[in-house]
């Protein structure tokens, strides 16, 4: 019976404690951040210098933020589901941490989208909220992922939380196509443009739109990696406390 109490070790974990995958993404974080800073500057400049929309005026510039946010939100929710399935298949906790991180970043993007949308809607359609099908579906997804985070925080941590959350993440992802199917059937009165790229982008608006997408995609990845690393360090710290601290 050797007493295995490693009190001499510090309780602050280092990145070296992380699983390989997270260590690797952690290393990519700094160069990504630098690239992101540069892109942000370029993004701001192109948005400012893009021509004013002749009909909508300055409010139209939300275009450079709103759709890219939507892509980020969906990306987040899809990664959550995939990571959830991977966790259920092989039980490795880093996948569960990825799912959580991705859902949180996705919720941030989704929230920003739900804020920018009504501002744009007020400016162009004259109402804050129009029950446009696409808007409704986004709100619904926002609720799904808030429920996901709530489920996580109320199920006590550990393997059970991870399993519950993985299943619910898959349910959430299943809802995305189902909701678009509903738009297909009942959404004849939608106000969103069906094909943004082709029809409504005027001269000089294409470049800032593309750069906007790139910047926010990079921002998404940067935040995701950072969040994932934090979660990994937290788990490593918990493992040390559990291994070392005895019942104290």
């Amino acid at each position, binding site marked *: *019976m050797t*007493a*295995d*109490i490693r009190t001499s070790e510090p309780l602050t974990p280092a990145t070296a404690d992380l699983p390989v995958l997270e260590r690797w993404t952690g290393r990519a974080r700094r160069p990504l951040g630098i690239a992101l800073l540069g892109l942000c500057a370029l993004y701001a400049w192109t948005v400012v210098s893009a021509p004013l929309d002749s009909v909508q005026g300055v409010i139209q510039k939300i275009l450079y933020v709103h759709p890219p946010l939507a892509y980020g939100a969906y990306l987040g929710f899809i990664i959550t589901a995939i990571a959830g399935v991977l966790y259920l298949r092989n*039980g490795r906790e880093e996948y569960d941490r990825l799912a959580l991180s991705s859902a949180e970043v996705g919720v941030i993007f989704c929230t920003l989208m739900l804020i920018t949308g009504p501002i744009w809607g007020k400016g162009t359609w004259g109402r804050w909220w129009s029950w446009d099908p696409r808007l409704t579906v986004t709100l619904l997804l926002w609720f799904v992922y808030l429920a996901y985070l709530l489920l996580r925080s109320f199920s*006590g*941590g*550990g*393997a059970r939380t991870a399993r519950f959350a993985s299943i619910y993440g898959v349910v959430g992802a299943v809802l995305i196509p189902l909701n678009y199917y509903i738009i297909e059937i009942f959404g004849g009165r939608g106000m969103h443009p069906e094909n943004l790229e082709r029809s409504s982008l005027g001269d000089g608006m294409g470049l800032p739109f593309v750069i906007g997408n790139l910047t926010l995609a990079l921002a998404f990845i940067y935040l995701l990696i950072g969040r994932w690393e934090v979660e990994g360090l937290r788990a490593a*710290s*918990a*493992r040390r*406390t*559990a*291994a070392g601290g*005895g*019942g*104290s």
Partner: protein
Amino acid sequence: MSTPLFSVIGLEKRFGAVAALRGVDLELPRGGALAILGPNGAGKSTLLRIMAGLAHPSAGRVELEGGKARGASIGYLGHATLLYPELTAHENLVFACRLHRRSDPASRADTLLAEEGLAEVAHRRAGGFSRGMAQRLSIARARVHDPEVLLLDEPFTGLDRRSADRLTERLRELRDAGHALVLVTHDVGQAAALSDEVVILIEGRVQGRHHGVSASGLETAYEAALESRSAARR
């Protein structure tokens, strides 16, 4: 000792930052009786639930001879009775038999009720049973699929003296009939009376293994183990 019926290897279980088990190794020979003795919060119930296949370990594994599937040859008697109060004793057993895919649920239920001395109350609802009767019924429930190992989690809790003696007697009979037993308890007397090996579990670690010791000898060893743990913490 030949190949063990049941082995637990390097078992760990964490709930967030709380470790319930910190590396537990156990072996149970065929027909053996093992008692896991420890204070409240030592991780005994968690260990038993993992052995029963009700929880997943964070690390380590449980091996059953022949690698049979979950539940196939393990009977589990939990803290709670696992019974439905609305169903009669007989119906509870028939239901459990069907869950375990027995082909003869009704006759198996009759046999078990007779063996546990519950034949007269077979058609009374389990909700009205005394603690002692409910405990006997849950032993019958744990045995529906005729498991080789019975896992018992604090089976004496809430029993009066007579029921407790009767349960001790019954568990001896089951052991003599060839069942292997794993008994989780915080009571030194019961641990000594029913088992041929006692493992002392404190704070998720095995703090001592004792073969064939008397109740008083075990008492001394247990006190010493508890004392050394609290000294180590100071």
